């Protein structure tokens, strides 16, 4: 039966069927053959999966992200990052990393981060004489690293799957996220010195003051969102709704780059993105139910335990699997297809599910950047108009840096758990 389930799934996906519907159909076939009973559980699983308050953060963060993206927040944050680091070797490439990290503290989507920051920084880097391939690679890698920085939509989805607190996951992403960003910047620094990348004059105090003043409303947002969540004032979902209204207000009335007539379009586009994720989650619930009925995770865990009961071997296998999957599958698809199988196994190996989640998300971050299927890579390439195959060379060292940081995150749980332990005392 398990063979039927995965066989049907593989055939449908290889025939270019939408992954969400392929999951639903394969599960239905397996259930129909197995139980021969009524399939009324199908609509029930779909409904109860989506009828969840924590998941509501997904459409709200998508919406907030697109308001910020179109509302001119990206440009102000780039200006701010610019006055802070532009005088360093490879300054503008570092600006990309810094601005992406700040932007991702208010946005939950890595694609939105890469689009908002890339659309401003890629033309600027080209003007300064960076090669288009390098500019594209830096924007893509920064977007991938940003997935760890809270808030993050994939963390919301993982929390829903693993039944762990979204707040704890957000808190846990801090150190690994900023450490990865710092590692990318160090790599950029040394590459820039070796290859003589252009630098700019250090910003004057007046310029710095101006940039801070202009970006202040945008900078207040992470204080409200993250402060609200970690201070226990709002849930993640509520903070997302606050972010939507704050984002609209800033974009409409302060920066005035968003007009009322843009709103319907943004609402509908966000609904489409929500629909893509929503259908995947509904079908994933059906798939997860069948997996549990067939005891797939249990059998797999026993198979692995028979070979080795080492937690490290398990973690290495999981990382290898996720990295390969990340090349071909989108982040949400990995979360719903592969992670439900891994979660019960991680529990059996006694791995903290918050730590496991951050490790999974760090893998997804690399998956955002690895060709052939990498959302951030696509976004960056579509801005720079650089063909994907030429970006791969400058991208490789950046990916290696991210992989090295992933290894640290995977094997040193303390790095991840220090902030949530401090905040939530667990």
């Amino acid at each position: 039966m398990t063979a039927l389930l995965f066989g049907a799934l593989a055939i449908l996906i290889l025939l270019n069927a939408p992954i969400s519907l392929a999951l639903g159909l394969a599960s239905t076939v397996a259930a129909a053959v197995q139980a021969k009973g009524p399939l009324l559980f199908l609509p029930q699983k779909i409904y109860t999966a989506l009828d969840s308050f924590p998941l509501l953060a997904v459409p709200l963060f998508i919406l907030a992200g697109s308001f910020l993206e179109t509302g001119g927040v990206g440009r102000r944050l780039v200006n701010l990052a610019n006055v802070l680091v532009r005088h360093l070797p490879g300054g503008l490439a570092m600006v990309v990393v810094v601005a992406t990290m700040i932007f991702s503290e208010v946005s939950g989507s890595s694609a939105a981060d890469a689009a908002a920051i890339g659309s401003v920084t890629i033309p600027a880097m080209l003007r300064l004489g960076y090669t288009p391939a390098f500019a594209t690679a830096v924007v893509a890698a920064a977007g991938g690293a940003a997935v760890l920085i809270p808030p993050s939509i994939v963390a919301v989805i993982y929390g829903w799957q693993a039944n762990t607190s979204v707040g704890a996951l957000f808190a846990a992403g801090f150190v690994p996220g900023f450490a990865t960003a710092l590692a990318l910047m160090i790599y950029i620094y040394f590459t820039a010195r070796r290859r003589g990348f252009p630098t700019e004059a250090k910003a004057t105090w007046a310029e710095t003051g101006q940039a801070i003043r202009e970006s202040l409303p945008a900078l207040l947002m992470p204080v409200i969102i993250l402060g609200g969540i970690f201070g226990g004032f709002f849930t993640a979902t509520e903070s997302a709704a606050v972010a939507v209204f704050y984002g609209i207000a800033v974009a409409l009335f302060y920066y005035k780059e968003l007009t009322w007539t843009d709103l319907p379009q943004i609402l509908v586009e966000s609904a489409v993105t929500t629909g893509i994720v929503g259908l995947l989650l509904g079908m994933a619930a059906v798939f997860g139910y069948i997996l549990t009925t067939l005891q797939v995770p249990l059998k797999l865990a026993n198979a692995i335990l028979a070979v080795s009961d080492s937690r490290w071997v398990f973690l290495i296998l999981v990382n290898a699997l996720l990295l390969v999957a990340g090349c071909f599958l989108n982040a949400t698809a990995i979360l719903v297809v592969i992670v439900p199988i891994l979660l019960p196994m991680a529990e059996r190996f006694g791995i903290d599910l918050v730590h496991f989640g951050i490790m999974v998300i760090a893998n997804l971050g690399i998956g955002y950047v690895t060709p052939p299927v990498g959302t951030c890579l696509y976004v960056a390439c579509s801005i720079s108009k650089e063909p994907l195959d030429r970006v791969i060379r400058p991208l490789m060292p950046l990916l290696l840096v991210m992989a090295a940081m992933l290894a640290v995150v995977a094997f040193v749980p303390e790095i991840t758990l220090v902030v949530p332990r401090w905040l939530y005392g667990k």
Partner: protein
Amino acid sequence: MAESSRGDRPSVGHALWTLCTHPVEWACGVLMAAIATVVFLQVFTRYVLAYPWGWPEELARILFVWVALLGAVLALRRAGHFSIDALSGALPVPLRRRLAVAMRLSLLAFLLLVAYLGLQATLRVQEQLTTAMEISMSWGYAAVPVSFACMAFEMARRLWRDLRGCAQ
């Protein structure tokens, strides 16, 4: 939104679809705005009025089920759902067409099945009331049959286009 149908005259199916796709877009836009407002209202009632109302959370959850499933209809229409085209792109064209027809046919059957089961489930929960608003659970459940019926319609439209393409 590019219309990729290559027909000389607008087909009945296409006319019907445009007729019902605009309300779906409208509904999605309104639902998104409503969700943000309702959740914001929940924060507002807790901190400003100092007592939380129960219904905003429940209403927001029902609205989310609707926007997630109706958004999926729009995404199917725009071919936005994640898929992998690596293998099917490598196949010879006639074989690829036949396999695409078989794949869409099986997905159509699945969508119709869930639409039908969803209708059954919606009717079955008619008497059950939600805890805070005390409205029928059918209001939420109805999103499943409505969405899957719309997706089935879109799938049928694509299938029809495939079949015409094969015949030519």
